[in-house]
């Protein structure tokens, strides 16, 4: 049983079986209050699923892409929960969850090309393109995740999906399928896709005219 956490857009937490069944999912679409809601979402989700921490076998962390401040909170939560419960953390590209959800729900046909778009703030978007589901039932990533101005987003995909929340249930399902097929998880680095805002000090300015 997996506990999946994603704060790359809003905040979402789910309990998902290794067979891919979503037992509970709680989300908040507030893009600013990740730190406030994360504890209650996790505790509430375990309650909803009616399971003890001991029943879990792993954590799933949505690695973004996401605007930095919020994205980190879910990853930090997944990692520290993993330490507390003595469980591994499986990193997953957050857009994969949106894509899986779209294909499974029928928003995109199983063989359609799909463009997943999320808000990157500062008038920019994160995007990833997909080419349907593979034999394991996982979305096939073609390009991305990447960052672009709204006018520069790819247009050739047959379906475009702008998402506000990454469903943690689907994130857990991606991880369950990857575990079942020995697939490749995301890296350990959060997908900020932006360098930190820094202004290199330009030496000292004169104070006397």
């Amino acid at each position: 049983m997996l506990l999946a956490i994603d704060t790359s857009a809003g905040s979402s937490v789910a309990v998902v079986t290794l067979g891919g069944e979503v037992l509970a999912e709680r989300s908040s679409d507030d893009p600013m209050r990740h730190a406030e809601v994360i504890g209650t979402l996790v505790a509430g989700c375990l309650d909803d699923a009616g399971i003890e921490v001991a029943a879990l076998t792993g954590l799933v962390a949505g690695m973004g892409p996401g605007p930095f401040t919020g994205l980190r909170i879910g990853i930090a939560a997944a990692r520290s929960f993993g330490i507390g419960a003595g469980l591994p953390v499986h990193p997953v590209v957050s857009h994969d969850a949106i894509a899986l959800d779209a294909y499974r729900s029928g928003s995109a046909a199983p063989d359609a090309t799909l463009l997943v778009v999320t808000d990157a703030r500062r008038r920019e978007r994160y995007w990833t393109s997909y080419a349907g589901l593979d034999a394991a039932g996982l979305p096939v990533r073609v390009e991305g995740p990447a960052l672009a101005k709204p006018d520069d987003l790819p247009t050739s995909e047959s379906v475009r999906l702008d998402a506000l929340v990454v469903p943690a249930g689907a994130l857990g399902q991606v991880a369950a399928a990857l575990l079942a097929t020995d697939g490749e998880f995301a890296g350990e680095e959060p997908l900020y896709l932006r360098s930190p805002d820094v202004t290199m000090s330009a030496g000292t300015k004169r104070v006397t005219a």
Partner: protein
Amino acid sequence: MNRAEPLVLGIETSCDETGIGIVRGHHLLANTIASSMDEHARYGGVVPEVAARAHLEALEPTLTAALAEAGIALADLDAVAVTSGPGLSGALMVGVGAAKALAVSLGKPLYAVNHLVGHVGADVLDSEDGTIEYPTIALLVSGGHTSLLLVRDLVSDVELLGETIDDAAGEAFDKVARILGLPYPGGPQIDRAAVGGDPKTIRFPRGLSLPKDMERHRYDFSFSGLKTAVARWVEAKQDAGEPVPVADVAASFREAVVDVLVSKAVKACTELGVPRLLLGGGVIANARLREVAAERTAAAGIELRIPPLQLCTDNGAMIAALAAQLISAGHEPSSLGFGADSTLPVTEIQVH
């Protein structure tokens, strides 16, 4: 929950140190700190986003190292504690998210506490019997804060007497180091440069120390004017084509900072009839500050307490220690809904 000697793990991420501390009552079991200071060096100061990214990276290894150092199992903990503020909000949020999930995973209560009061709480780890004598004045000086507190009771009555109205003292050291062409962090660099310098050569201004400032800013600090005065003095030398006596400038500047910090702290002790002064924060590493504080408190009959340096700089042990004191005093845990509060007032010792 063991309220007599609670076993508490504290998480601190308010600035550039990722600190995990473990205490049992007032006994220190582990104090592990990872610092991102080196990553900030080329920017000449702490970059909030760089600090926050570093916290996420350091979290797991620091937590694991602290547990190994303390030799305890997470299941034995009575509670988890975390800094809720004040500090850099993005940095604080990493600790808050981690602490909440850790507490839920362990089914343990969570205490969200005040960073500045945590600095005062560090003192219980340095005392024989785990008690702090009250009341005490606390002078907390770092790159992020410069505050003077009146502590009547660690867990229930802390008052802010004054704080910096512009730069923190540590920031002033960084900025003046840059004026003198010295690298970051400025504190140790200024100290090194001041060796052999005469602190009386240049009389730099003491911020908010004039009689006219005393009404509104009696216990407040200001270092921005001092920094400008140093820059102006150095520029005048350079414009005149004369060499800048770096050792004298560094020593005179440091003397101005130390003088105003210690003067105001001792003044608070005397005026409020408090015979105790506690120092905390990273700038306490400055030997000249400790020296002047020791001289002047001794002369005024004030007892001076300075915890070991690793408990003065930002650390998780002080957060755990404060939470342990709250637990022993019967305070209930925080709810899971609190957030990071970058401007949390010192009167809010615990966030519910």
